């Protein structure tokens, strides 16, 4: 029987302090579901009073069907060896989330990434606007409704002579009169 006392204890502490929902997923894994306006308070409490000093990761998932972004703040305690997922849903329209880089400096990198890739705004976020993309004026590309195929067709074009996407090797052999051996032919597009 797996002992989940430590997991249940931290879950209950956070649940009673902030009146939020949560569950123990398995050993070393606890999930907290909170509204976005108390996420930073939970993180600060977990860090300063419960020893969850390490921000492992912040994950973002686009739930296009629900009209929401899901942010998961993954924090870890070096003493308890437990990972807590603090999850929250925010609206896709005018997406905005509280800036937590005053709690962990490295959150700044995640927030700059989400601003660029999902269009989520973090008021007070300092840092170059461009993090990964350059001169990007399209929809934030990690959104589910960003059509990569349409973007590629609009932005890029075939080199002259490649419009029909023919196999260059075959075209060249036709011109030079070479014969492609059978074993190589099976990879051709025709």
């Amino acid at each position, binding site marked *: 029987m797996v002992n989940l006392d430590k997991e249940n204890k931290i879950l209950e502490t956070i649940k009673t302090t902030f009146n939020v929902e949560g569950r123990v997923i398995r050993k070393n894994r606890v999930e907290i579901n909170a509204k976005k306006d108390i996420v930073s308070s939970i993180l600060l409490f977990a860090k300063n009073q419960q020893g969850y000093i390490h921000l492992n*990761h912040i994950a973002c998932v686009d739930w296009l069907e629900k009209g929401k972004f899901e942010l998961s703040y993954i924090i870890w305690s070096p003493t308890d*060896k437990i990972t807590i997922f603090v999850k929250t849903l925010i609206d896709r329209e005018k997406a905005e989330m509280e800036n937590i880089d005053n709690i962990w400096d490295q959150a700044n990198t995640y927030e700059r990434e989400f601003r660029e890739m999902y269009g989520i705004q973090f008021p007070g976020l300092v840092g170059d606007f*461009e993090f990964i993309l350059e001169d990007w004026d399209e929809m934030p590309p990690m959104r589910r409704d960003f059509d990569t195929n349409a973007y590629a067709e609009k932005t890029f074009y075939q080199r002259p002579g490649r419009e029909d996407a023919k196999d260059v090797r075959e075209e060249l052999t036709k011109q030079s009169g070479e014969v492609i051996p059978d074993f190589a032919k099976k990879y051709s597009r025709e």
Partner: protein
Amino acid sequence: MVREKETTLYIGPQHPGITGNMMVKLKVTGDTIVSASTHVGYLHRAFEKLIERRNWLQSFTILCRFCVPEPDPMELTYARAVEELEGREVPERAEYIRTIVMELARIQAFLLWYGGQSGSAGLYLVGQWSVGDRNYVLDLFEDLTGGRIYHMYIWPGGVRRDLPKGWKDKALKTMDYLEKRLDDYDKTLFDNTIFQKRAQGIGVIPKDKAIEWGVVGAPLRGTGIKHDVRIDEPYCAYDKLDFIVPTQEGGDVWARALVRRQEIRQSISIIRQALDKMPEGDFYNKVPNPMKWTVPAGYAWAKTESVRGEVGFYVESDGSNKPRRVHVKGAAYTHGVTVLEKILKGQNIADVSFILNSLGVCPPEIER
């Protein structure tokens, strides 16, 4: 008092001392760095977006490209996340083979790091030796997986194939050879006054801030803090093997180098033990037809210890035949941006690539 003029200096993206396609923008007065900021985006290929358009197995061709010097932890971490979502069991033999693959990956990444770290100190001989020796490890990978760099060998449910005939003997002989070579590396690098003088006291990560800054792996253990995913949350067969997690005090480039140096002997020991204790049996728990394979809805967070530090995969499934989201956290995401920017302040321009190498920054992990 005369105020020195502040100059902006760009190191990278094309620079021999930069560990990939990234740029560090420096503000300097004289030779001293006043501030640093990391700029990435030079090889952004939208790996995570591409994975959303592929089925659960097709993702493997992309995953290994998150970090060229060390692709295996990516495969393992993703496979473990998918296994957790599915509740899929992994045969014990496969767990031992995975352990061996992970430690071989650690050794070859270490040998490549030797080259980068010594090269950035001007000691090119060590790098030529280590990259030559790395080829013996890549030979083992080629025999085992068919590929030298990218393997796509670890899959959900186990590994793709069993150890080939004679591979165990070859692996043991390679370990004997590499163990002997460590003394040569010690003489040429660690006993070398140039390296010692260059590495000691620079790029210091303060012990009391290390975990809070998101430092992981050898840089964390170089500050004296003993954390390693292999011990904290054991996976594969690590809980059945004896090994120690080396630590050093100081948090400087020298401490990080010593930790890596000590780890390599542990990796050799782990491989020998795993080859010895490995049980007979299945090496693969078959997955359904990949084109029709659906994974139950939910999310999983798996983490693995790579030579650069902790690698984490957040994998979300909506119950379909493609991942809804695979969000990758590599060690470089913090090491290469906020940690690097902090510890470069006050350092000399000549030490930038030296410090960068010591953190093990892999730029594709940042921009993914």
